């Protein structure tokens, strides 16, 4: 199935392996000193945390693994991180900006 033909809503769970579809571009906007996510007719401005999460969305790591990595990096409880990551990714999926294996 092509990238853009989706059967239904993606529900983000612990085993979900999320990735950004190729038509979404995460770029550093040098002139405005911020990260941006370019999408059809949209420009999203992810904050520092969101950028770190998005950079780990490679279609190989699961939500569990992403949360574990961030938990170690920030010395924060993994349950808190996982809740935050899941909500962020679900929000992106509901906007149509996230795919997953």
């Amino acid at each position, binding site marked *: 199935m*092509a*990238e*853009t*033909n*989706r059967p*239904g*809503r*993606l529900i983000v769970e612990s085993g979900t392996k999320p990735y950004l*579809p*190729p*038509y979404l*571009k995460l*770029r550093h*906007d*040098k*002139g*405005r*000193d*911020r990260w*941006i*996510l*370019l*999408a*059809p*007719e*949209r*420009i*999203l*401005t*992810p*904050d*520092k*945390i*969101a950028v770190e999460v998005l950079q780990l969305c490679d279609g190989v790591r699961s939500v569990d693994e992403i949360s574990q990595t*961030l938990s170690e*990096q*920030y*010395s*924060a409880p993994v349950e*808190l*991180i996982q*809740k*935050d990551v899941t*909500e*962020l990714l679900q*929000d*992106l*999926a*509901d*906007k*149509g900006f996230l795919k997953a294996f």
Partner: protein
Amino acid sequence: MTTELKDHVGDVNDHLESVTVDDEPTSGVTGEDNSLGALCARAPIGLLAELTHRCPLQCGYCSNPIELERVNKELTTEQWVSVMEQAGEMGILQVHLSGGEPTARKDLEEIVAAAARSGLYSNLITAAVTLKRERLEKLKELGLDHVQISFQDVDPENAERIGGYPGATAKKLEAANWVTDMGLPLTINAPIHRQNIHNVGRYIDLAVELGAQRLEIAHVQYYGWAYLNRAMLMPTYEQTMQSVDVVEAARERLKGILTIDMVVPDYYAKRPKPCMGGWAKGFMNVTPAGKAMPCHAAESIPQLTFDNVADRPLLDIWLHGEAFNAFRGTDWMKEPCRSCAFKEVDWGGCRCQAMAITGDPTNTDPACALSPYHGEMAAMAREESRRPLKPYVYRNPKNAAEALKPKQEEAELTPAE
């Protein structure tokens, strides 16, 4: 680091702000006033490149000016390539390749390649009736990011009457399938007016069937040809409200499957739209002949003069061009805008609509309930929406010549006491 993260737990939605037009300088930008950083922070984020006014369709709801620019006045390939390069350098992020029909330009490939090279996210806005699969494949290879295809209605017969192009629907459906087959994101554009407003629900079904990411329920905005044909396009208040309900129900049902953006008809609104996100705030438009304008209808304001990208750098026009500074910010405002709490929310609405309805572009947009012209405008819309439907004026060069002939002035609206 922990504290920083904790600050974000619980307010997830703050991680991602979605903006369509935004040039707010960030607090992180420092440096000399003439440094690249400072310039980028003040640059627009979106560029509408109207590559040509030629179009195989003849839709009477088109917002192009009546006076269509001729092919021999169009910018050259080198000039459009330079516009793309300058746009990338000055900090523009997205380019919308539009028209007319942008694929009527034989050099679209070179323009798309220049946009991609310059780091611009490119969006092809096409009627798709003359597009070939091989050409779309080539454009994708060259870096095209997104395709938007318009459907004049979901019923082929009515669609082809509205657009004045027999056989259009089959070609559009075929092209839409190529787009999704190639893994390109697809937007379906639905220009809504009284001749197709009953089909808003079926447009939503069509977009889902085609695998589109995004559907624009774009109620016609009354500029150019659409203004000329307004009475043949204006839906009733009741039809308008029903269509809004259908969209809102579908948005909930199709979360994560289809994004529906809606442009509402503001003749029935109480508050004006923040047109272009504010005049010369985040957006610029270049016409087929190279005129740089703050919005695509700006030529309807006779007081304005426009610089041409062939004569002056794009950034210089953006920062110092007369038309760009005419209504930038809030200093130009009169009452009731000047003392209004919403003046930096809606920016006084639309200058072109203020011009068209009140004859003065510095007036409050009459879509605003605080405008003395508001009641009359709404009454006019209601009255026009109930008139019997007659054929409208198709957008083509012959009708343009006819419409531009001098004729008796129509009576302008007078403000309420």
